[in-house]
C-alpha cells in the first residue's frame, strides 16, 4: 500500500508549489500566501481509498449532488479547498488521496500536519474496516507526534446502507477497537470523536459542523449569545449557519435534534434557491437584510434572518411565540450587533483569543440589559 520505503531524498511536498497553479477547476483559488496557520486552520480528510473523502468534500463544499459522487475520479493529489466565507469560518479542507502515505519521509509531513487543526479520518462502514483501523492508528500516532494540538475526528461513513441497529453496533465496535489500538500504542491521552455520517442525509453536515466548531475560538461566546437570544425571545432552537456550506457554526446549548437541523438546512436551500431564481442580482439576492418565515402545519414557525452575507440565523419557534415578531426582530438586531462586535474585536486583536472572549462577554451583558427592558415593556 505504501511506497517509498527506500526513498531518501526529500522533494517538494504537495503543498509547496506556487499558489498560482491552482488546484484544478473547482478550486476557489483565494489562497493568500501570507496566511498564517492560526488564521486558517487546516482540516485534513484522510482515510483509505474509496472511503468517500472526495465525496464529502464535494457534497459539503461544492453542492454536488450525492448521486453524482459515484462518478468522481480517484483523487491523485492533495485537493485543497479554501473556506473563508466569514470571519468565523475560515479554514482549508485538504483531501488527501488514500493511496499515498504522506508520513513517508519523501513528503514533508511537518508541513502537512504542522498547521493542521483537525484530522478527519473517514472509515467506510460498509467495507471491512480492519485495515482502515490500522491506518487510523498509524495516522493518529504519527500526526500526534508532529502536532499534538490536532483534534482527531473519525467519520464512520456510508452508514446510509446500514440498519439502525447495525449503525450502533458498528460505531461501538469501531470505537472499541480504535481506542484499544491507541492504548496499545501508548496514546491513551488522545481523544477521538466518532460521528456516523452519510452524504445522503444531513449527518455529514452535522458532523462537519461539530468539527468546524472546535476550530472556532469564539464558540462559547456565540453559544452564550444564542442562549440569551432564545431565552428572551421565546425561541425553541436557534442555529447560526454558514450559508454556503450549511454548516452551523454555533447553536444554543439545548440538544440538537437531527430533524430540526434538517428542517433548517432545507429552509436554507429553499431560500437560497428562491433568491437565486427571483433575485435581482445574478449572484442571488441573499444579503444582510434578507429574512424568511415558513409556517409549518405543526404549529411551528421557521424564521431565518441574515447576519451578514455568509451567516444566517435560523430559529424554530412555536407559532404563538411568533405573535411578538417585533420583539424578536429587536432582539435579533441586538444579537447582530453583538456578533458584529465580536468580529470587530477579532479584527482588532486577531492574535489574542483571550481579549476576544472578554470583549464579547461584555457585549452579551449589554444585550441582556436591552432584552430585559424590552421584555418588561412588552409584558
Amino acid at each position: 500500500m505504501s511506497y517509498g520505503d527506500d526513498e531518501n531524498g526529500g522533494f517538494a511536498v504537495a503543498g509547496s508549489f506556487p499558489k498560482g497553479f491552482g488546484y484544478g477547476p473547482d478550486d476557489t483559488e483565494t489562497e493568500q500566501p501570507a496566511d498564517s496557520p492560526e488564521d486558517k486552520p487546516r482540516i485534513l480528510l484522510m482515510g483509505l481509498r474509496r472511503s468517500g473523502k472526495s465525496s464529502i468534500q464535494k457534497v459539503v463544499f461544492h453542492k454536488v449532488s450525492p448521486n453524482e459522487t459515484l462518478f468522481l475520479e480517484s483523487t491523485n493529489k492533495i485537493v485543497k479547498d479554501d473556506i473563508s466565507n466569514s470571519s468565523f469560518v475560515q479554514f482549508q479542507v485538504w483531501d488527501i488521496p488514500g493511496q499515498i502515505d504522506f508520513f513517508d519521509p519523501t513528503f514533508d509531513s511537518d508541513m502537512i500536519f504542522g498547521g493542521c487543526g483537525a484530522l478527519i479520518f473517514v472509515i467506510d462502514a460498509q467495507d471491512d474496516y480492519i485495515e482502515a483501523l490500522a491506518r487510523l492508528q498509524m495516522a493518529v500516532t504519527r500526526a500526534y507526534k508532529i502536532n499534538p494540538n490536532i483534534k482527531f475526528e473519525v467519520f464512520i461513513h456510508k452508514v446510509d446502507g446500514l440498519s439502525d441497529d447495525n449503525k450502533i453496533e458498528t460505531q461501538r465496535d469501531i470505537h472499541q477497537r480504535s481506542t484499544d489500538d491507541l492504548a496499545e500504542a501508548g496514546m491513551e491521552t488522545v481523544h477521538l470523536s466518532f460521528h456516523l455520517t452519510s452524504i445522503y442525509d444531513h449527518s455529514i453536515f452535522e458532523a462537519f459542523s461539530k468539527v468546524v466548531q472546535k476550530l472556532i475560538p469564539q464558540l462559547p461566546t456565540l453559544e452564550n449569545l444564542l442562549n440569551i437570544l432564545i431565552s428572551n425571545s421565546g425561541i425553541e432552537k436557534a442555529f447560526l449557519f454558514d450559508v454556503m456550506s450549511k454548516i452551523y457554526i454555533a447553536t444554543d446549548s439545548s440538544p440538537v435534534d437531527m430533524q430540526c437541523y434538517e428542517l433548517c438546512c432545507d429552509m436554507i436551500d429553499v431560500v437560497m434557491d428562491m433568491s437565486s431564481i427571483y433575485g435581482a442580482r445574478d449572484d442571488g439576492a441573499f444579503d444582510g437584510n434578507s429574512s424568511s418565515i415558513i409556517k409549518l402545519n405543526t404549529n411551528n414557525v421557521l424564521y431565518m434572518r441574515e447576519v451578514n452575507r455568509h451567516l444566517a440565523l435560523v430559529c424554530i419557534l412555536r407559532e404563538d411565540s411568533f405573535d411578538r415578531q417585533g420583539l424578536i426582530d429587536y432582539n435579533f438586531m441586538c444579537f447582530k450587533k453583538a456578533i458584529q462586535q465580536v468580529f470587530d474585536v477579532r479584527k482588532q486583536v486577531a492574535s489574542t483569543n483571550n481579549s476576544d472572549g472578554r470583549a464579547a462577554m461584555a457585549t452579551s451583558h449589554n444585550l441582556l440589559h436591552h432584552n430585559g427592558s424590552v421584555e418588561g415593556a412588552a409584558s
Partner: protein
Amino acid sequence: MNAIISLCHFCEVHGPKILFCTQTLRPQEPGDSEGDENGAVSAAPRERVASLSERLKSVSLAQGCASTTGESTSTTNIASASHASVPKVIPKVLCEGCKSVKTGYVSHDEEAHLSYISTQQPHIPQIFTRMRQACIRSLSCEVCPGQEGPIFYGDDQNGNVLSHTFHIPDIQARGRQRLYSIVVFMMDRIYLLNSWPFLVPQLQTTIEILRKKAQKVMDEEVDKMPQAVNRTSSLEPRNFLKKKGVNNKPARSLEELTGDKDIFKMLHVAFVWTLKACGSRLTETLLEGPPTEDSIIDMENQEETEEGFIKINTKKILEEARPSSTPAEDLQSPTSQSDSYHNTFRKVPLTDTETEAEGAAASEPIPEEEKPPIRILRHVMKMLGNEKFRILTQHVVIGDQIIVCCPDKDLVRSFFNALKVLLPRGCCSIIYHSDFYEESWKCNFLGQKPDTVLPDHLVSAERFLLVEIVPLSEQTFNSLDSDLSDMDEDFKSYEFRIINPVPLSERMPTVLAKMHLALRNENLTEKVAEQFFVCLKEEWMNKVKVLFKFTKAGGGRSEDETLKLLQVVGAREEDKPLLKFWMTGLSVQYRTHILASSKQR
C-alpha cells in the same frame, strides 16, 4: 540521449507507480556489437543480454515474445537469454494495472554502440529512487493547468523531468478514466528544455495512439452493455451498494484497456525512437572561450617548429654554450632559419608549461640530488625578501634585462622559469646560460657566469638589472634538498645581490601590485595563483591590444588622446612602460591582422 522515458500510472489501489521505463545503456566493453543485424541474435549481444537480464529486477520469464525490428535496432526479448540466473524475488504483489512487462525488451543500436532497454522499473537503485520521485511528483504533486498536458519540474540534485499527464478512458474505472503520465527524466536541464519542442509532440503522438485505442475498446464495451452507460437511471444508493462487490475487481492492465497485446512493444519502439531521434537532434559541443594570447603564441611557435627546419635536441644545447652570434629574435620575421633556431630555445620552457607551477624544474632532466629549490614564484619571493623581490619583479614586468650571475646553471634556470610567469609568453626570451653578454634585444633573461664582464655601453645606458647569486658556504650545497620543509634553509644558503643602476618609478604597475597581493595571500594555492596570473595577464594583454591598435591603426595621436585612452582602459602613469613592453609580446597573428586592417583604411 542520456534520458529515461517512462510511463507512469496512478493506480486505484496502489497510488503512483512506474509502469514501463526505457533507458539507454552504454555497454562497458567496446567492440562487442559486431554483426547481428536483422534481429538475428549473435553471440555477443546475447551475452550482453544475459548480463543485462541478470541485473534486471523483474523476475519471471516471458513466454517467448516475438522480436520486433526497428530500422537499425533489433528488439529481442531479454527472457530468451535469462534463465534460472535471476533470483525469484517478487517485491510486491502488484495488481494488473500496475504491471507492464515481466522482464522487458532490449534494442541494440549497432551504429552507435548503444542498447535501449525497457523494463518495468529501472534496475539501478539510485535511478529507481529518482524515477519514483519523478513519478510521484508527476502524478500526485505537480499541477498541470487543465489536468492534462506537459509540465516541467525538477532540480539539479534530483534530476529534471518533463512530464505529460493524460487520461485513458476506462469504463470500469472511477470517473470512467484513469490517469497516466509519460515522464522524460534527465539530469541536464538545458538539454531537456531545448528538446521540449521535439519531445512534446512526440509524446502527444504516442498518447493519442493509446487514447484512440482505448476509446475504441470503450466504445465496444458500451455497445456490449449499454446499461453501464446510463447507470444514472438506476442510480439508487442501494443499487450501487450491490454492484460494489463486482466493481471492486482489480484494475485492468493497459493491454486490456487498449485491446492491444503488443502495446508495450509499441511503446518500447516509440520511446526508443524518441530517445534516439532526440539524441541526434541536438548535439552538445563544449564551447571554449577564445584562446589566450599565450596559447596563440604557443601555437605559432608550435607551427614554426613543425614546419621545423632543424630538430635540435634543445636540452643539450641549452646545457652547452650557445653559438656566439645568434641572430636577432624578431617575432615579425619568423621564417628565417636562424629564428626558428632561436625559437627552439624558447620552446623548451614552453613545452612544459602545464607543469610550470607545480614543478617546471622538476620536469627538466636534472638529476634528483641537484634539484634546485626554486619552483614557484613564491619561493623566489621568500629567498629575496619583499623589498628585493619588488625591485626584481618590477624590472621584469617593464622589460628590463635581467642578468643573473651564478655559478649554478640549474639554479639560474629554475630562477628564470619561476619569473617567467610574470610575463606574457610573447615577452619573455630566455637565455639560460651564456658565456658572453647578450644584447637586451635578444633576451630579457640572461644567465651568466659570475665573472662575465658587462660591456661599457650597457653599464652606462641600458636598462638592466644585475642579480648575483652567491652561495654562502660549501656545506649548504650538500644539504640541498627540495623538500618543502627545509626550503627556508635552502634559501638561506644563497645570497642575492641586486645591482640596479636604473632607478625605478615609485609605484608598481597595477598588474604587478595585484600579482604581489596574490602571492602574499597564503589562502591561494599554487594552482589558483597560477590561474589568477593567467587572467591578469590576459586582461592586460587586452589593454595592450587596444593600445596597439590605437597607436598603429590611427596614425598620429596626441598626448591628450593617449592619456584619455589610458584612462578608459584603466591604466595609470606607472603602467605605461609595462604596456609598452608587453606590446612586443603580441602574437604575430594579431599584429599582422591589425596592421593589415589599418592599411586598408
